[in-house]
C-alpha cells in the first residue's frame, strides 16, 4: 500500500467526504493502486518543460463592467434544501 489509513483519512477530511467503514478499507486499497499507477510519471523526462495548465493558448477575454443579471432569487432557491427569509440555512457556525 502506497497510502496508509491516516493519509486516506486526512484526504477524506480535506475533501469533506464521509466514508463508511467498508468503503474506507476499499478506498485505501484502490487509492493506493491509483497512486502507484500514476507514480510512473516520475520517469518522464520533464527537465526544462514548462507546465501546461490549459490546451487553449490565448489570453483571458475581458467582459465589460455591466450589470446583466437581475434578481432571480425565488427561482434559484428552489433547489435549496433550507432557506429562511432569503437566506440559505446551515447548521449554526460557531466561531
Amino acid at each position, binding site marked *: 500500500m502506497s*497510502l496508509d489509513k491516516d*493519509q*486516506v483519512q486526512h*484526504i*477524506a477530511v*480535506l*475533501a*469533506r*467526504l*464521509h*466514508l*463508511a467503514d467498508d*468503503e474506507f478499507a*476499499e*478506498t485505501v486499497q*484502490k*487509492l493506493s*493502486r*491509483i*497512486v502507484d*499507477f*500514476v*507514480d*510512473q*510519471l*516520475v520517469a*518522464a*523526462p*520533464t527537465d526544462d*518543460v*514548462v*507546465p*501546461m*495548465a*490549459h*490546451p*487553449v493558448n*490565448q489570453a*483571458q*477575454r475581458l*467582459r465589460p463592467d455591466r450589470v446583466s443579471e437581475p434578481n*432571480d432569487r425565488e*427561482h*434559484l*432557491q*428552489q*433547489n*435549496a*434544501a*433550507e432557506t429562511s427569509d432569503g437566506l*440559505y440555512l*446551515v*447548521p*449554526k*457556525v460557531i466561531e
Partner: protein
Amino acid sequence: MTALHLQTLTELKAGLEKGDFTSVELTTALLERIGSLGPDLNAFISVLGDNALAQAAAADAARAAGNAGVLCGLPIVHKDIFCMRDVLTTCGSRMLENFVAPYDATVVERLAEAGAVVLGKANMDEFAMGSSNETSYFGPVHNPWDHARSPGGSSGGSAAAVAARLSPAATATDTGGSIRQPAALTNTVGFKPTYGRVSRYGMIAFASSLDQAGIITRSAEDAALLLGVMSGFDERDSTSVDVPVPDYLAGLGGSLNGLRVGIVRQHFDAGLDEQCAAAVKAALAELEAAGATLTEVDLPNLDYCVPTYYVVAPAECSSNLSRFDGVRFGYRASEPKDLNDLYCRSRGEGFGAEVKRRIMTGTYVLSAGYYDAYYLKAQKVRQLITDDFQRAFESVDVIAGPTTPTPAFKLGDKTDDPITMYLNDIYTIGANLAGLPAMSTPCGMVDDLPVGLHLVGPHWAEGRLLQIAHQYQQLTDWHKQAPEAYT
C-alpha cells in the same frame, strides 16, 4: 418510405422539408419507440414526452410560417450533463437526483434555437466519471448489440439511444474518450471537437481543461450538421475560442487523394485485441486504396497519457465538485449535527464510489507536499504529449488507429480494478490532453460487436476529420449496421 426511426438526421430533415411527415408525427413515433424499447436499455434518465411534443408542434408551426431553423423539428437527446431550464438535470448522480436546472446550457440553447426537439435526457456515468456507464446512480446502460455488455461511457446513454434507433442523434461530452469510446462500442459516430470549439457553459464540469461537448450520430454527415449549430464562440465561457465556424456540410465532398494518414506503432502493440487490430488495419487499407498515404509517426510519450490524465482530471474534479455541499442545491444529508457533518455526509452519501475515489485522488495530488510530484509533473508531461502531437502533425493530416483496445466488454468485468477500467481510454485520452479534435467512426465487426476507427486531427481540423469519415462512409457501410433487435 424507410421507417422514421431508421432514417438519419439528414434524411429526416429532407423528409420534414418535403412535408412527408410532420415533427409531431416523427416525435410521437420516437417517443413510442423509447417507451417500448428504452426501459430495457436504461438509456434515459428522463423522457420529456410532453415537452418534446410541444416543441415538435411549435416546430411544425414555425415551418408552416416559413421560419424553419436548420434543425427545425428534428429530434435529439441530451446527455444529462447539460443543464436544461426547468428540467431535471442529474449528471447521473444521487447528488443531483432532484436538481431542476434553472437555466439552459449554451449547447441546449443553440440546438433549441435551431428548432431541435429534445426527446429526453440520456443516462451517463456519474459526473461523466467512468468508461462503462456502470457508475450511474440510475443503473448501468445496456449495449444494444448485447445487453450483457457495456455501451461504454461516460456517454453510454447517448450512444445506446442512437445505436438502438431511439434517437437519430444525441449530445455527449468527452473528457478522456467519453464520446468516442461509447461510439466505438455501439457502432455510432462520435465526435469530440477541438477544446474551445463548443461552449462549456451549462455543461456540468468534470475536468475543466479537458471537457468538451460533442455529438453521437449515425453518420459523419449528421455530425457535420449538428456540429455546425453547436459550435462557435460563447462570451459566457472564457475558454471558448473565437474562431469562425466553417460550413462543415459543404466541406464533406472531395476525395481522399493525397491525404497523409499517420499511424502510431504503439497503438498496435500487445494491448490491442487482434481482431480489432485487423478491422482497423482493413480500414486503413481502405483509406490507402482511396488515395491516402500511410506514414508511421512517433508519439514518444504516449504511455504517459493515462497516468497524466489520472492526475490532471481528478485534480480539477476534486475542486469542481466542491460546490456540492448540500447548501444551495443538490443532496443534503438529513439532520446534520453540525456544519462539518452536513458537508461530509451530504457528499459522502450523495456521491458514488468512483466519484469519491477521483475526488480523493485529486485532493491528494494537489495537497501540500505532493503538488510538485504529481500535479505539476503531470502538467509538464501534458506539455510533452502536446508537443508530440504537434510534431506529428507537421508531417501528417490526421492520425488514425483504434478507438478502443477491445470491443464492448461485459458489464461487471472491469469494475474491480480502477486501472483496468482507466486503460480503456488509452487511445483517446491524448486528444483531450492536447485539446485536439477527434472522432470515432464504425469500421468493422468482431463476433457481432462493433469496432471503431479513431481519427485525431490538429486544432480546428473538425472539417477535415468529418470529410475523411464521410468519404470513408461512402466507401463502406459499417456505420449503417444496426443491432438486429433495433432495426
